[in-house]
């Protein structure tokens, strides 16, 4: 009773609205950055990761193409420059994995640290915990995209169209909405199955397989092509690469953006609803802190 009368408690209890939640999400994002940066090996991994993922693809491509051009790829997608095609397409892998795994497992991480129940009892929106983690992973993964593209331009002769940079960033913003829906769904799996990493691994690896990052959808078996077309990641990659390779002259812009917006709405609404009901269900069962 006594602490209810204090000024700080009244202010904390009265906090509400978008600004207050955004501040809380920002604090969570900064907290995760501080933890990550306190492990020197994590920093080293963060810097070398984009190269280590891209290099085997580059060597594999060089071994089969024998140069920097591919006539087969030209027939499939209209560009001979396979290095640029793959470098731009795969640069989003880090961002995607970061959002799906980092955000999806954010509550599990707090649980392992013993801070989940404490966080859940603070007067912030439940989903703010997930949004905060997403904010961190967006900045983390986003820096990875810049690092990989920068290295690809400097070391591997990749060229991008400068006019396409801002529209490509717009595509990333749209991609994040759809991926946040997936991250909410992953969080639900983690809340219910606790470990659940194997299910998440299947979902994330499956989404990456059917996304046209280092190959067009047309090389996939027909059934996987349909699955790919229903994934927001597919259209994010297509739009992002389309703008960075062709600039404002990118011809598939209407199809990519429209499809991405529609899929974003479906994935986000589905994910957010799933999270809302799962979180309530788990709390009602008293299973929040169970391992």
């Amino acid at each position, binding site marked *: 009773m006594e602490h209810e009368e204090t000024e700080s408690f009244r202010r904390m209890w009265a906090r509400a609205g978008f600004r207050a939640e955004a501040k809380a999400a920002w604090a969570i994002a900064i907290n995760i950055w501080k933890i990550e940066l306190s*492990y020197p*090996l*994590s920093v*080293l*991994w963060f810097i*070398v*990761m984009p190269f*280590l*993922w891209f*290099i*085997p*693809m580059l*060597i*594999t*491509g*060089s*071994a*089969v*193409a*024998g*140069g920097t051009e*591919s006539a*087969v*790829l030209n027939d*499939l997608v209209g560009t001979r420059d*396979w290095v640029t095609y*793959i470098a731009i397409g795969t640069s989003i892998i880090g961002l995607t994995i970061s959002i799906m795994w980092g955000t999806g497992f954010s509550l599990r991480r707090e649980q392992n640290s013993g801070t989940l129940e404490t966080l859940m009892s603070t007067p912030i929106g439940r989903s703010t915990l997930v949004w905060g983690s997403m904010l961190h992973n967006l900045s983390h993964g986003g820096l990875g995209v810049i690092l990989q593209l920068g290295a690809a331009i400097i070391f591997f002769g990749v060229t991008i169209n400068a006019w396409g940079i801002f529209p490509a960033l717009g595509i990333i913003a749209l991609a994040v909405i759809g991926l946040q829906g997936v991250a909410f769904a992953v969080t639900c799996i983690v809340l219910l199955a606790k470990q659940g990493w*194997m299910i998440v*691994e*299947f979902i994330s*690896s*499956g989404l*990456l*397989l059917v996304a046209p*990052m*280092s*190959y*067009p959808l047309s*090389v*996939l078996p027909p059934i996987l092509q349909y699955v790919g077309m229903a994934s927001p990641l597919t259209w994010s990659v297509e739009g992002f690469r389309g703008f960075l390779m062709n600039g404002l002259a990118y011809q598939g812009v209407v199809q990519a953006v429209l499809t991405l917006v529609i899929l974003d709405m479906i994935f986000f609404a589905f994910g957010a609803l799933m999270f809302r009901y799962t979180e309530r269900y788990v709390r009602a069962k008293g299973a929040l802190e169970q391992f």
Partner: protein
Amino acid sequence: MLTEDATPEAERIKTPYLATFKPRLMDWSAAKVFALKNLRIAIRYPTNFLIWGILPLLWYAPYILMMIAIAGPGTSQSFTELSGFDDFITFSIIAVFVYQYVDKSIWSVGNNFRWEQFSGTLEPLFVTPVPRISILVGAAFSDTLQCTFSATVLLVISSVLFGVSYAITMVAPIVVMLTMMVFALYGFSFMIAGLILVFKDPSVLTELISNITYVLSPITYPLQALPSAARFAAVLVPSTIAIITIRELAITGLFQPLSFLQAFASMLGLVIGFWVLGVLAFRWGEKWTKEKGSMGGF
């Protein structure tokens, strides 16, 4: 008072096991017990065997699909000139199968003590009077058995999906070469286990080692595709010679005694080298961690 309940020193010495106990370099019965314990846990989750036979396919299929997108289905002149093989899909799948053992040695055996730490059993395990290496050998043996099952599932599924086939008549020399590689990998994983005891954070260190090993391994490209400096480093990875030899045997179906013996001798050198290096690195890691008092630290 703790001192009142504790067993007096004189009585403890009378315990038959401790009375006859002598420090040994290797305790095979402890290794067997540990292997059986790990296998018993693994069998409790039978779907894991199947999942680990399918999951790697999702990681390696993008490479094969990318090769198809760049060079067309199955073959390219550049690849044939570089590797001496016509079909890059057949070329890659057998290497993916062999590489599963490397992956397992890094992620499973190398991280074994970290998983024990997460289970809260690391410190009790370290006060048992058995050589640590025997615990690692036990874990490695159980992982080899699990990996053999999962990798075989992966090979069968991949062969069906991509329509490739290999010379079944070469099973005997392939098994010999695989066994040599597995022994070399044991030493490699002891080294990683030592590093993980020191550095703790397993995810990042393991990811780094795993990715560097993957880049250096001639899985989806021949060794000749690597820059010359990387080629020398690649030969030091325990799986490189094994991948090259096994691939040659499985695809061509020809057994050439001289080149096989050369590969065998090289693998023997790697087995000895990695065991010496691995045991020394692990002992150093253990000593360093104990001196720092950070054995149970996260």
